[in-house]
């Protein structure tokens, strides 16, 4: 062991009780230690710097640093930063990884894999594609574009950079990369509010970017800080239209309710709502052993994503078809939930106590249900006639046997995000009714985590909602 290694190690041991969380303010790192918090998921203590609120607000008298930087240049910069996101070579990511495993329920290996895939979020094609699908005329991001209406009135339009607060989600450490990219693409002045389950990755990303070019306008437009969600002193002060145009938030419940209090004229919320995803499998899935094997694998990959901590992870699988085949499917699904994958591990955390009790009760009630696996986090499949009451989590799938998939539509609601379907041609037959019920995305079974680039999220194109559409009119 080299000397630096042992030094690092002894420092780690010394600070084992309280983890230091650094902030990043428009290109500069502010070292943590002053304010102590406890992380939400795992109850770990960490200490951030004191927040200087003035540093987080850019007066409206200042033009946004990215205003005159062309989109192409921003994309080039983001891609150059993406190339530095190689876990083996990037000390910031390495440090973040060590710290995240202490505060986040995701297993270390999954976080490692997410970091290894991080650079794929920042490719020229991907970034370009989201610009092209979000904006009818992407040139409006770079300059004032002329337009003429049918009466011959002239005007000009600019997608002007907004001032934004991003409330980052805590369940996927690399989710902040998309938020950073979105903030950069709309040329915004950005404040990222980090979650307690990962107050590290966003700063690690921004430090990586600062290493590429500390004075780059993208870097100068970004700050990442932690405060406890709901902290009135900070939120009451900051959440004002004089300071920010948009708050982008993930999640629901208290996290959103805290924000809603401060909305009003001039300060808008763009929310990525909390979602549940499901699967639907028609009778064709249970007709032969080969197909059962195939759909058990694809369904398992949809259920297990991020050990089911993600919105796109399937939780209820509605099935239509012959009982024997369905039971075979359940058995194989359970086996495959226990497989190590890139974004899931053999063992998730055991199920929460309340859920374990409801499952126990199901066993004691001698109902028409069947169960494969246990509540140990290694994969559990529960076959029932009606969906269970609890929220399946930690790699649990509730397979619901319905007479017809049409009957399953009534279980689709405004919180339903992704529906994985087999056979895929069912999508066409059902997508209008699913959209009407509230769903926002139908995919092939096994395709929950695969995306057609540049697609909408939460049934909207977010970038065009972020910008401040400024109009110059000569009517």
């Amino acid at each position, binding site marked *: 062991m080299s000397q630096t290694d042992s030094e690092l190690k002894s420092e780690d041991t010394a600070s084992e009780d309280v983890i230091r969380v650094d902030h990043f303010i428009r290109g500069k790192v502010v070292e943590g230690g002053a304010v102590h918090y406890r992380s939400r998921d795992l109850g770990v203590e960490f200490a951030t710097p004191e927040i200087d609120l003035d540093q987080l607000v850019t007066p409206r008298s200042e033009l946004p640093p990215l205003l005159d930087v062309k989109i192409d240049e921003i994309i080039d910069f983001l891609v150059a930063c993406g190339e530095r996101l190689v876990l083996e070579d990037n000390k910031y990511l390495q440090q973040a990884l060590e710290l995240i495993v202490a505060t986040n329920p995701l297993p270390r290996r999954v976080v490692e894999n997410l970091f290894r895939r991080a650079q794929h979020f920042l490719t020229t094609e991907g970034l370009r594609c989201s610009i092209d699908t979000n904006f009818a005329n992407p040139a409006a991001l770079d300059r004032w574009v002329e337009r003429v209406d049918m009466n011959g009135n002239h005007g000009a339009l600019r997608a002007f950079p907004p001032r934004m607060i991003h409330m980052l989600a805590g369940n996927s450490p690399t989710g902040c990369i998309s938020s950073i990219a979105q903030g950069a693409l709309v040329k915004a002045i950005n404040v990222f509010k980090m979650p307690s389950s990962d107050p590290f990755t966003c700063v690690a990303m921004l430090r990586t970017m600062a290493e590429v070019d500390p004075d780059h306008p993208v870097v100068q437009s970004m700050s990442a800080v932690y405060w406890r969600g709901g902290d009135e002193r900070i939120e009451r002060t900051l959440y004002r239209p004089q300071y920010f145009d948009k708050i982008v938030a993930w*999640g629901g*419940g208290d996290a959103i309710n805290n924000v809603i209090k401060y909305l009003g004229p001039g300060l808008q919320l763009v929310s990525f709502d909390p*979602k549940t995803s499901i699967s639907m499998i028609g009778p064709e899935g249970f007709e032969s052993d080969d197909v059962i094997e195939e759909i058990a694998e694809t369904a398992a990959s949809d259920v297990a994503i991020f050990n089911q901590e993600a919105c796109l992870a399937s939780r209820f699988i509605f099935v239509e078809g012959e009982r024997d085949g369905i039971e075979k499917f359940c058995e194989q699904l359970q086996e495959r939930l226990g497989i190590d994958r890139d974004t899931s591990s053999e063992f998730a955390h055991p199920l929460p*106590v309340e859920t374990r009790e409801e499952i126990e009760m199901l066993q004691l*009630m001698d109902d028409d249900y069947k169960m494969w696996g246990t509540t140990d986090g290694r994969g559990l499949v529960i076959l029932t006639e009606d969906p269970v009451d609890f929220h399946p989590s930690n790699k649990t799938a509730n397979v619901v046997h319905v007479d017809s998939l049409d009957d399953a539509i009534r279980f689709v609601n405004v919180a339903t995000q992704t529906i994985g379907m087999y056979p895929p041609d069912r999508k066409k037959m059902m997508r209008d009714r699913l959209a009407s019920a509230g769903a926002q995305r139908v995919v092939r079974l096994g395709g929950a985590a695969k995306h057609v680039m540049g697609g909408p999220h939460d049934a909207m194109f977010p970038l065009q909602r972020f910008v401040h559409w400024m109009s110059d009119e000569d009517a």
Partner: protein
Amino acid sequence: MVSAAVERLTKLAQSEDRFAISHADLRDAQAEAMNERFQDRKDRIKLLGHRAKEGSISEIRSREDIVPLLFPHSVYKSYPESFLTEQKWDRLGKWLGTISPHPIAAIETSDIDDIDEWIARLEAKGHYVSASSGTTGKSAMLIASAADMDWTRGDTVGVFSWGSGVQPAQDRRMFGVGATAYVPKNRITAEAQAAAFGDPEFEPFRLPVPPITVGELTKMVVLRKAMAEGTARPEEIAALETTSKEREETLEKAYVIAAESLVDARADKLFIGGQWNALYTVAKLVREIGYSAKDFHPDNCIYVGGGLKRAQLPDDYQQFVHHTFNIPPNRNFQNYSMQELNSGMPRCQKGGRYHVPPWVVPMILNKDGDELVLHTEGELEGRAGFFDLALDGRWGGVITGDKVSLDLGPCACGNAGPTIRDDIARFADLEGDDKIGCAGTVDAYVRGLS
């Protein structure tokens, strides 16, 4: 069934010195009594038998052994909500059967309209179901037996009398100013107090509001579910909003009537009962009418039931209530208990600590509640677990959500039995609520019913 140790310990309820017995003197008898309960119940409470089998537990020799068999609160709400919303009474009865040691008697369910009727029919067969008020979520349903109701009668009087120094001399006018749920446990508590402390010449004052039945409480739950599923019609929601607004107005008027009646009775010796928010509201009204401590009898007492339940009150609410009704300092009564137990732990005047009676076995568990923390003397903080040996109609082992400090040594008041410090906190309140993520349920899409 010989339950010598259980009997010995529960009989102490009659003793004046019940809180004077030290932990060291109780330890073996309590372990023996828990084992008696366990042996008698393991084949009768289905869930207990299941847990014992899973944990390969065949005997309770010490407090360690009971830990895996303590039931959390959530056990009492582990029924699928659809049993309620779709009125599957037989299924709900079957569910009760998994947590009751006494077989649930067959009742006719085909013509039952609502849960109140179901509960009434069970009561007629000797099953007393008290449901908690879950306005936003599921109600917990705690089943008890006639023996438990008898125990409640004695315990509530004993606890209050010991903690407040008020003798059960039938010499007080009874004022119930709280809007409590109309469930067997609350009803019987009120009856027993009135019988023991109430002057039979006066009709006890009850807050003049329609009874808040379990059916009323679950209407909210049922509608909430329909709202989440998107099947609730706007008119239904509007109607419920109107009803709850009317109920609120009725309640406000009732508080005024309570305040006026208290003022009228100010010369008499009073026993005032209610939750803190009701007591505070009424006290404020009394002050507004122009009366305060100097106008009330100098030996009044108050009985406070339930916690704050998220009510927003000023910091000095207790003082304010005491000062309004002229409650002498030595009548300051506080009690630590919970729905899952059937016995109270009164606070002593001198030491200011909650005293655990000999038939309740207190335990300090680790934060997760799955291990007993070694504790042989002195004070220790952690998650509270209890075994109420007096419980008959359900399992007495309870794991709480409370963070408490338990002292096995003697209290400043002179009693040698175990005590709990007066700074109980809920783990749920200690932990944050700033979790944020993209995964979630439709519950987040239901705007609360006011």
